[in-house]
């Protein structure tokens, strides 16, 4: 009922905006353009700008992530334009709000491709958005689509490129670390949807391969309000380690319950970093995870770029984090730029072909390169530990890890 009302509301909004306002706006824009043309000496040889579609959730549950994404995209595009653009042409950001709703995402993605004629679309926060827009953009729209998020894996469509971490890049080192610390029995807990299920399937595989055992696996509904039952099951299992992918808003109450209940083991997951820790609260203390970036990453380029970002975008300072996909957004646009320059063309087919072997020396977190045939990146990964104040400590720098995806499944 709630969903359908939301839809009704949206339809009404659309109709209101349709009435006459478009024509008036066009007239205003046309006269403004005419005036500008008369007043300024536009250099005749200036090449037209190239549009980059930036698709993210500016509103709805993931609005906070959208705020970060938009700022990082603007920052990256400004940086590229300052150094001369791509093939001599300046980039122009076209922002589309997918509103944490797959139906809206499909609409705005279609507009980006068919109306704005963007050269590439970067975006999506949750996998349901990727699934909703990928065919609209990459298949029917024949436009390059870059998915900049760590996710559950298995995205191998044509014209789609993944620039976040694949499950094995986060899960394998986390589990191996726990095993090396003498943790033998694991409890797996997650929210009941695709992402946690796929991540925990990988966890199970690596635990069993490493000689550990699974003493429990539980999934809770996304709208779970009280985690008591799950907490009791974890405590009763007496597991050495809890691998949890219970997503927000359930994460905090769940971890709090487990910690307060006297859980003796380690708690690990894929969604802990400076962006999420403060939302969890002080129970974040001691959480283990692997990301492609944490603020203390010891890399001169990373440090100076993040500092520059915080200065230029005070509205999103503190939102530059791996779980908000900030590093992936930054490198996505640079990877596309490198592919366009290699292809010497903005043509989708040519850029798509060039992407496979692109690498970046300067990237947030360290150098990255596409692992040929996998549509995913070889990423430098870091094992991190969360602190009570929301910050992260890097336990170990893991170096470049190859993705097991698409052609190279393991």
């Amino acid at each position, binding site marked *: 009922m*709630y969903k359908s*009302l939301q839809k009704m509301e949206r339809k009404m909004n659309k109709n209101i905006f349709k009435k006459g306002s478009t024509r008036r706006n066009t007239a205003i824009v046309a006269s403004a353009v005419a005036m500008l043309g008369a007043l300024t000496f536009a250099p005749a040889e200036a090449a037209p700008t190239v549009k980059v579609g930036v698709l993210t959730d500016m*509103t*709805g*549950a*993931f*609005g*906070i992530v959208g705020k970060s994404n938009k700022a990082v995209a603007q920052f990256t595009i400004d940086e590229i334009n300052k150094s001369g653009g791509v093939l001599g042409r300046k980039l122009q950001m076209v922002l589309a709000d997918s509103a944490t709703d797959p139906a809206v995402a499909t609409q705005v993605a279609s507009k980006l491709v068919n109306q704005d004629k963007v050269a590439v679309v970067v975006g999506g926060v949750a996998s349901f958005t990727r699934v909703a827009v990928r065919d609209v953009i990459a298949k029917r729209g024949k436009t390059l689509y870059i998915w900049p998020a760590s996710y559950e894996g298995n995205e191998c469509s044509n014209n789609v490129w993944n620039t976040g971490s694949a499950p094995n890049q986060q899960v394998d080192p986390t589990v191996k670390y726990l095993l090396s610390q003498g943790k033998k029995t694991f409890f797996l807990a997650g929210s*009941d949807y695709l992402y946690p299920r796929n991540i925990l399937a990988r966890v199970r595989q690596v635990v069993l391969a490493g000689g550990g055992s699974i003493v429990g696996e*539980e*999934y*809770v*509904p996304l*709208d*779970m*309000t*009280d985690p*008591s*039952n*799950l907490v*009791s*099951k974890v*405590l*009763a299992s007496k597991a050495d380690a809890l691998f949890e992918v219970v997503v*927000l*808003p359930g994460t*905090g*109450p769940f971890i*709090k*319950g487990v910690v*307060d*209940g*006297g859980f003796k083991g380690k708690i690990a997951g894929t969604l802990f970093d400076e962006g999420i820790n*403060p*939302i*969890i*609260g*002080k*129970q974040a203390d001691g959480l283990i995870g692997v990301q492609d970036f944490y603020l203390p990453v010891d890399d001169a380029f990373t440090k100076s770029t993040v500092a520059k970002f915080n200065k230029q975008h005070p509205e999103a300072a503190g939102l530059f984090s791996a779980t908000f996909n900030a590093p992936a957004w930054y490198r996505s646009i640079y990877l596309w730029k490198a592919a366009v320059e290699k292809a010497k063309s903005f043509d989708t087919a040519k850029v798509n072909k060039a992407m496979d072997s692109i690498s970046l020396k300067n990237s947030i977190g360290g150098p990255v390169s596409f692992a040929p045939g996998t549509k995913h990146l070889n990423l430098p990964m870091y094992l991190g530990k969360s602190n009570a104040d929301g910050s992260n400590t890097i336990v170990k720098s893991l170096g470049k890890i190859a993705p097991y995806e698409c052609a190279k499944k393991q």
Partner: protein
Amino acid sequence: MSPTTIRGIFDVLSLSSVLILLVIGMAIIVGMMKVFNMCQGELVLLGAVTAFLCGKYLGNLWIGIILAPIVVGLFGLLLERTIIHRFYVNPQGALLATFAIGLIMRESLRTRMSTQSSPVDAPIQSSINIGGASLPVWRIVIMVVTLLLALAIGLILLKTNLGMKVRATLDNPDLVSVSGISTKWMYAGTYAVGSALSGFAGAMIVPLQTLYPNLGYDNLILMFIAVMIGGLGQFAGPLAGAAVIAVPGAILGQFISPVTGQILVVFLAIIFMRFRPVGIFQRGR
């Protein structure tokens, strides 16, 4: 008893008391006044927000817990006098109007919050050890408070003059109004008290969960089921209804997956409604 059994029993008590606490306000507004109040969840949310803000800016959640019923009660009074009272003759209209109010409250919080959710620390954060199980004190406080609150409201309604007037008004407003009692303010006052109780519940339970826009909405369906099972027209029914769905839910949750457990509870509720459509305590008419 093993620590696991102790925790199991504790979970049943805790989950039931949380749901009963959430339902107390609704038992008055939906159960007794028979207003299908779809924004009841957002009244809980408003209480939680009040507590959160007091915790954040005054550094003391106790103040928030005391303020929440006052703030939400006044808000409920305003709501009743401006909107709700127009719909007593039109229950379907009330359903839509209160749904809209809830939607507005929920979404305006979403646009104001700079994060998806915010943690709230309980005023008492310690745990006590009973038979090897470490049990959070705040949950015990909620059990005691719920029990006392339900008893107090029940006694006021049954044993005091005011309670009698309220029940009389809701039962037969015409007769009451010719007896010289202002039904207008009786209705407004009752709605305000129902709101205040929901606000209080929100402030109490937000440390167990976390502050997020759907905090009330996610609880709403279970609250409604509790009221439906308990039966309309009285106060105690919905509370018993809350226990009837929370207890099997909590017990099932210990043995089967929470997802299946949730589906089963709703399924059992439907079967119950089929055989006892008037609720637990009422005789068929």
